[in-house]
């Protein structure tokens, strides 16, 4: 499709090739610490790139900002501090590991450009509060942009592909981009708001195929205050439910998400829906595994799933591992440090299939 190709090429943004300053995300490290480790390992060990993990940087305060308790002036100053630390460490290319903060960094840089008085004020606040000087970055990328940038190098080192080893068919993948990646500043995301290509590019390079389904661009339903406050969680589950209902008929082998928040919600709400009404969305009567793109890249590169932290998922990933022909030790999944046995999570409907539950109810 000519129009499609044109839109994609229009949004080919520049991604730095080396010397990154890593801005860690609270959601990523809480729910997917193994993904973060995989990203740093891929860049450092596999690709020989230099990435700075600075112990001084803090949260961007983005969840507080989008819950409207952290004012714009405050988050601007926090972000300015990260930029100042980056410059002090001798780096110019920021790479953030969360869609929410990626949106925030872009929004703030744009606001400073459009309303220069806000940049001036931020400089003053930063100086007064910390004595540091704001230095603007040369580029801001999301961690997935960087993985996308190196997708062919990763493919060249692949130990496995996104292919069903029994049938030889490409795995069918639902990709979820996350609203703040490209809906705030379409030009800052690969492929823009209409044709986000960041995950699709990885999937295609590694042998899988993307599913197009009606609610492909719908929000996962995080909605900040709509999840964080218990009284509002119906909003969150209802929007995830809408997406899951829409994708299920296309029988995806797995979902991969760009945003750690989205990965977590699409995983956990499948559990909640299965417990509440016995509905599961996977073709095998269980849940649909939800991966981060770091986990997807890690599996392709032959990393051990438990070293990737895939035991953090509520929906079991084993059916997918078998389809991909990944060798793994099922007994090692829920071990602690140094192989210590620490018990295991209780069973859940989303992992056993609804039939058993229906059977139990009939009993």
């Amino acid at each position, binding site marked *: 499709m000519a129009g499609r190709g044109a839109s994609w090429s229009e949004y080919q943004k520049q991604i730095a090739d080396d010397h990154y300053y890593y801005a*860690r995300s*609270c959601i990523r490290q*809480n729910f997917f*610490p193994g993904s*973060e*480790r995989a990203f740093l390992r891929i860049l450092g060990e596999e690709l020989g790139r230099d990435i700075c*993990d600075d*112990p*001084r940087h803090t*949260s961007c*305060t983005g*969840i*507080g900002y*989008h819950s*409207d308790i*952290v*004012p*714009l*002036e*405050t988050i601007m100053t*926090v972000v300015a*501090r990260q930029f100042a630390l980056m410059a002090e460490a001798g780096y110019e290319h920021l790479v953030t590991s969360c869609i929410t903060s990626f949106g925030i960094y872009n929004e703030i840089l744009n606001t400073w450009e*459009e*309303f220069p008085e*806000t940049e001036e004020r931020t400089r003053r*606040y930063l100086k*007064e*509060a*910390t004595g540091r000087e704001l230095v603007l970055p040369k580029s801001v990328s999301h961690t997935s942009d960087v993985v996308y940038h190196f997708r062919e190098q990763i493919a060249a080192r692949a130990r496995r592909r996104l292919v069903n080893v029994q049938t030889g068919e490409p795995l069918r993948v639902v990709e979820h981009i996350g*609203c*703040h990646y490209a*809906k*705030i500043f*379409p030009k800052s995301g690969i492929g823009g*708001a*209409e044709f986000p290509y960041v995950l699709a590019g990885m999937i295609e390079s590694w042998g899988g195929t993307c599913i197009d389904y009606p609610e492909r661009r719908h*929000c996962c339903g995080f*909605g900040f205050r*709509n999840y964080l*406050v*218990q*009284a509002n969680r*119906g*909003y969150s*589950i209802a*929007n995830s439910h809408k997406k899951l209902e829409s994708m299920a008929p296309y029988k995806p082998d797995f979902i991969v998400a760009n945003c750690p928040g989205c990965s977590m919600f699409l995983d*956990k709400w499948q*559990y*909640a829906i299965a417990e509440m009404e016995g509905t599961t969305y996977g073709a095998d009567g269980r849940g649909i595994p939800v991966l981060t793109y770091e986990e997807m890249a890690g599996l392709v590169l032959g990393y051990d799933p438990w070293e990737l*932290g895939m035991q*953090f998922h509520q929906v079991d990933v084993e059916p997918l591992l078998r389809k991909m022909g990944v060798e793994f030790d099922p007994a090692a999944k*829920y071990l*602690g*440090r140094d192989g210590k046995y*620490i*018990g*295991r*999570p*209780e069973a*859940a409907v989303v992992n056993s299939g609804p039939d058993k539950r229906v059977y139990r109810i009939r009993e």
Partner: protein
Amino acid sequence: MFFGFAMDKYYDMLLEDVRFREGLKACMNCGVCTGVCPAAEFYDYDPRQIVSIVQTRNDDAIEELLRSERIWYCGECMSCRPRCPRGNTPGYVIQALRTLSQKLGFFVESEKGRQQLCLKRSIGENILRTGYCLTPQLVRPETHPEQGPVWRWIVANDREVYGRLTPSYDREGAGALRRIDRQSLEELDRIFEVSGGRRMFDLIEKHSDRKAREMGYDGADERYAADTFSRNTTRND
């Protein structure tokens, strides 16, 4: 005064917020934003209508909005931003309205607005205490049953489970889930002091306390906070 209506007071206050200037040029009431809005899907909520009310510049109408439930429904997903044919962003207008509602103390007049206290006490205080919005201990299984048994297992065995993947868990230095050093936390604290973050936190507490007393609580205590966190009388049909 214009046709007997008070005009522009709140509109001028909103204009001080750059997000408002960026978010509202001229709305033609087409409703495209409402069509893509996940909040409109779930709540009796219509971003087109919010923008249209603000555009009247009528003080009474805007004040009603600032006191209403409606401005608290939006999920700030910004799906409306790339879609508006006039380049507006209703989500930004909402952010400006919420900020103003908190500054003026109107947020406590709605059930959803009163939830700002819980957000301040959880996410807000956690930022200053730990340097992160979220830490594993904040997602307590008792208040997060939807997180399921795997999360319960993680929280119960946090040192083992995180320790297997990140040696820096709860320790100073580089790495995931590291403890943030004292100097960085002090800098964060001063940033909140200098840039108005602390003032916003104090305002949320002050107005919540006033409202709690009005509602028969002993101020904005634990019980008030717990009730605002779990109480939901919104009808979605």
